[in-house]
């Protein structure tokens, strides 16, 4: 699978640069969820608080 498909609900897919991967510098795991894509392709089946 290619990165765009693999990273479908992540705002910026993780791409290589001539065989290198530059680690994201944002805090945490370093990505933002694309909530529009999540709404389109995802379905919440459980929530609790």
């Amino acid at each position: 699978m290619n990165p765009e498909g693999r990273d479908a609900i992540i705002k910026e897919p993780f791409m290589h640069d001539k065989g290198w991967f530059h680690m994201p510098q944002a805090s945490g795991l370093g990505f933002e969820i694309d909530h529009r894509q999540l709404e389109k392709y995802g379905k919440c089946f459980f929530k609790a608080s």
Partner: protein
Amino acid sequence: MQVIDRVELYHVNAPLPAPFSPSWIPGLTRTIVSFYLVRFITNDGIEGWSGFTRSGRERVGIGHTVADLFSWGQDPEDIEKLSERIHIMAVGGNFNWWLEPAFWDINAKNAGLPLYKLLGGSDNRLRLYASSGELRDTGARLEEAEARFADGFDTMKIRVHDWNEKVDIEHISDVATHMQGRMKIAVDCNQAFRLTALSDAPLWSLDRAKRFADAAADVGLAWVEEPLFGDWHEEMAKLTAYSRVPIAGGGLHVLGYPELKRLTKMRCYNIYQLDAMFAGGVKQCLDVARLCKKEGVDFSSHTWINGFGFIINAHVFAASGLRRTWCSNIR
């Protein structure tokens, strides 16, 4: 005090731009990437995310258990306790190490750092290898290798899964000879875990694996991955002791650190390729990395499943401080 206050679980089915037929699941062609997604939210609004591969509706019923074990006031920084609770789920028959990185997501956000830096890493970039996920005839494979070489990769992992071992050996030999001096070739035999729901698959014996390792060594392959069934620890150790080419594996040892510690002591692999989503989470994978360093064997992260698996295992590898070439999902 910050505590986990809310949990949400999702199914996600997103289209792939092209059909994909994984070599390790004979008979399957995927047109979507399908996974479970978790979002934990703390009482002060910090979110932790993770996602795990989905083959059906096997995790539809875990919501209340996840809420009971990980929500209701749990401290997201108490990784030992949270890992113990994932182990409780595993004893009950449901392995969910993929939840653990979501807690690390929260902790690293609390610290204002990317996770690998929170864990002591300083490698800002990783050298990747290209990983082909499909079986191809040799002509198509050579075209693929040339394309990945042009993309900037200096190492590529190819796949074999034929009933006839001569076909497999000819394939690796032809590709390695063609790319000799330009690109290192590795091979994934996908013997560790048999996915035979749709179609039967070859099951290699130790003798077949030895013959294959001999051929791989003769043409200078970088490593041979998962050449035997994952539970055959003694046979794996015999193969690794015998082989002239590095034997790699470890991504699917779902019991985590205790199992991988035993495998390391037994010298089952030359290269331990762990996937935090399957094999113990971030903490246990880093514990294995430290053990590998002490024992003088190689460690590398491994991934395939989705973007969450990719980035979580990238953080593990960047934090490990070990500079071996790491996996890419490019095909």
